[in-house]
C-alpha cells in the first residue's frame, strides 16, 4: 500500500468511468425484477446484500419461470461461487481483524477487483475499496430507480422484457468467453439446459448445467 497519497480517490476515479453503466445496469435489474413479480423493496435489498449482477438476474429469472426457491437460490449462489477464489486473491491485501476483513470483502465485485489489479498481478486495497464504494452506490441507487420506474411502466411481456433476460445473459456470457476452455464449458452448459428443459422443473436445467464447469479441471 504505497504509491499515490489517496488510493481510495484513485479507485473511485477509475470506477467513475463505468459508474453510469453500473447505474443503468442496476436500473435494468430493478426493471426486470419488477417484471418477474418482485417488489421494489425486495429488489433493492437484494442489490444491497448480494451486490453481484449476474447472480441476481439468475435468481429473478428462475423465480419468474415459476422455479422453486431452492432452484433460484442455488443457481444464483453457484454463479457467485467465483467470489471464493476472487476473495482469496485479494485476501492478503485486506486489513484488520475478521470483522473488518469481512466488511471490506463485500466491496469485491468483478469490476472493482479488475480495477484494483496492478500490472504485476498483485492487488491494491485502496483502489479496491474506492472503486467498490462507487460501484456499490451506483448499483443500489440504479436498482431503486429501475424498480420504481418499472412499477410505472406496466405489463412487462408486451414490452419484450422476457427476451431482455436472454439478451442480458448472452452479453454477460460473451464477456466470460476468454479461452477455448470457456467456449467448451458454455457449450456443455447450454446443451445440458436445452436437453433438460422439457423434462424437469424450472431452474433444474440451470443447476445441472454447472457440470460444464468440470472442463476446467487441470492436470498437474
Amino acid at each position, binding site marked *: 500500500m504505497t504509491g499515490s497519497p489517496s488510493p481510495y480517490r484513485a479507485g473511485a476515479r477509475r470506477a467513475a468511468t463505468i459508474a453510469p453503466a453500473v447505474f443503468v445496469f442496476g436500473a435494468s435489474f430493478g426493471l426486470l425484477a419488477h417484471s418477474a413479480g418482485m417488489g421494489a423493496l425486495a429488489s433493492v435489498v437484494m442489490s444491497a446484500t448480494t451486490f453481484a449482477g449476474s447472480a441476481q438476474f439468475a435468481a429473478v429469472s428462475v423465480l419468474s419461470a415459476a422455479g422453486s426457491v431452492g432452484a433460484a437460490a442455488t443457481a444464483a449462489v453457484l454463479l457467485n461461487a467465483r467470489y471464493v477464489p476472487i476473495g482469496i486473491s485479494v485476501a492478503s491485501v485486506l486489513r484488520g481483524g475478521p470483522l473488518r476483513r469481512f466488511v471490506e*470483502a463485500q466491496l469485491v465485485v468483478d469490476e472493482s477487483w479488475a480495477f484494483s489489479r496492478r500490472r504485476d498481478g498483485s492487488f491494491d486495497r485502496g483502489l479496491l475499496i474506492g472503486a467498490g464504494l462507487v460501484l456499490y452506490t451506483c448499483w443500489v441507487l440504479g436498482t431503486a430507480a429501475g424498480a420504481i420506474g418499472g412499477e410505472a411502466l406496466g405489463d412487462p411481456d408486451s414490452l*419484450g422484457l422476457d*427476451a431482455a433476460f436472454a439478451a*442480458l*445473459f448472452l452479453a454477460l456470457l460473451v464477456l*466470460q468467453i476468454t479461452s477455448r476452455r470457456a467456449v467448451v464449458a458454455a457449450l456443455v452448459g447450454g446443451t445440458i439446459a436445452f436437453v433438460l*428443459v*422439457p423434462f424437469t422443473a424450472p431452474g433444474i436445467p440451470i443447476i445441472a*448445467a454447472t457440470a460444464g464447469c468440470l472442463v476446467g479441471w*487441470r492436470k498437474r
Partner: protein
Amino acid sequence: MSSTWLVVLIVGAGTVVCKAAGPVLLGGRTLPPQLAGIVDMLAPALLAALVVTQAVGGDRKLVFDERLFGIAAAIVAIRLRAPLLVIIAVAAGVTAFVRLIGA
C-alpha cells in the same frame, strides 16, 4: 415469508459468505490450481444455461416464439459492441414489435 424474500435472503447470505470466505479464513493462501480452473468455468457454463432457458424455455417444454427475433437483434448489437443497456433495449424492443405486428 414469501418465496421472493426467502430467495433474497438465501442469495444474499450465500454471496456474503462466498466473498468473505477467503479474506476471513484463508489469509494469503490460494486455491489449488485444479480447483481454481473448475471454479473459473462455473460462470460460462451457468450463463449459457441461462441464455438457453430464457430464450426457449417454457413450462416443461421448449418454446420458440417472438423472443428469438429479439435475441437475434441482440446478437447483432453485441457484435457491434453496443453498451449493455442498448443490447437489452434492442432485444426487448424487437420482441415487443414482432409481438405487436404478429398479434
